[in-house]
């Protein structure tokens, strides 16, 4: 089954830039991603720039409305995602529990919707 692992955390949490802690965490991210790929479970994934860089777009009555900011102003923001393919939810939970940011953030596991003609 395919799942999106959505990585939420307080943007102020976690190690600060240019610290040895950050370097260690970056190593952790690289090795985690490599482990996912080696297990054949990795479909994709990216880290996102902070919400200060986000832009909102809506189209209402044919008019495109563009605004600064993320969709929702919350303490914990979406900071990245992985797309994985694993046998079941327990396997997805195991992978989610190993994500470097899970110690200070939250990982939301969402199954990828399957359409009948896909299978």
């Amino acid at each position, binding site marked *: 089954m395919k799942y999106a692992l959505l990585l939420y955390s307080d943007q102020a949490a976690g190690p600060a830039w240019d610290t040895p802690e950050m370097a260690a965490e970056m190593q952790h991210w690289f090795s985690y991603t490599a482990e996912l790929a080696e297990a054949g479970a990795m479909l994709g994934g990216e880290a996102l720039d902070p919400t200060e860089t986000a832009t909102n777009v809506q189209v209402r009555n044919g008019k495109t409305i563009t605004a600064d900011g993320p969709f929702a102003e919350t303490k914990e923001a979406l900071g990245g995602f992985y797309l994985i393919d694993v046998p*079941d939810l327990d396997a997805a939970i195991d992978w989610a529990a190993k994500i470097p940011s899970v110690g200070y953030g939250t990982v939301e596991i969402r199954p990828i919707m399957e359409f009948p003609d896909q299978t």
Partner: protein
Amino acid sequence: MQNAAINAITLAFRDEWPRLVATLVRELRDLEMAEDVVQEAFVEASTRWRKDGVPDRPGGWLLTTARRKAIDRIRRNKRFDDRLPALAEAAKVEPQPEMLIDDQMALLFGCCHPALGIDAQVALTLRSVGGLSTAQIAHAFFVPEPTMAKRLVRAKSKIRAAGIPFTIPPRDRLADRLEAVCGVIYAVFTEGHVSSHGRTLLRGDLCDEAVWLAETLAELTPDDPEVRGLAALCLLTDSRRNARVDGNGQPVLLADQDRQRWDRDKIDRGLAHLISAPARPSRNSNDRNGPYRQQAMIAAVHSSAATFAATDWAAIVSIYDQMISAGGNPVVELNRAAAIAERDGAAAGLDLLEELDARGDLDHYLYLHSAKAELHRRLGNRRAAASAYENALVVCDNDAERTWLLGRLATVST
């Protein structure tokens, strides 16, 4: 013949339902279809057995029939096409006892998966493992039947969409997941034992179901001390069922219960679970002295006392001490204070209760106020007792307990 068939179906329903659902969930990898085809097999049994007589092995007959129904369904609905080869293969093998145990464990772990809300876990467990109908579960939880039906449908959709597996978790997660299963069974039991909203204090059917689930789980995992503790706790508590309410449905305090009315068979079974827990738990099972086992040990002290006065309060206090040193909670402290009141006198218990009350954690907890009221009453502080009963009434939402509290209040208000 008719009666024999009806008896055989009733018996098979009790014994075979969870095994059949468990086996078919493994083979079909779909809970809803498994339940539906088992249900249909029972419907067919109710006509066929009456006409043709009860088969030699009712369980085998039901399994074969349910599998045939599943194959028919799959042929009609292409979505499950990929399950056919496995099902055809499975149909050749007679399930072995070890497989049946594993399948039932897997079914329980799936229904009690922490990715489901606790209400959904409870409802699914009663439906799929217990074989209760949606109407029965709705009735037991005082919700309209369509609400319960919706809850079950949502839970099954989530199981399917989220890929919740019906498997026994790996060793490193087993203890945690077993704790979740125990939590569901205990929730069923407490809901039956003290119904939080409603008129009656006891609803035996849910207690029966929880006792049965706990004993089944203990059969499946005989080496887990906490599972044994849960089974013991349910049995020992439930042994007092007939003595806990009087003829008018009013609660009877432990001190005033007629101990002749306690169910000896349940007490013996409960004590047996406590004794049979292994001296040293296996590495991946729960603690030897976890909370269920500790509560069961307290219940066992009560069960072994011929009269309330003969209760070994020192033993009870020492079990509460262990619970507190293992990281207790205000309710444990409240119970310990009540035991201290019996061991050292009402004034000593009351001191501890006042301390607890001052902290404010239990402001909305009925039994803090009623315990204070009882001790004040014993010490002859009528006014303080009355005000504590009044505080208890404010947070009481059970009609039987309300009537009881009003009765107690009247005895100190005149």
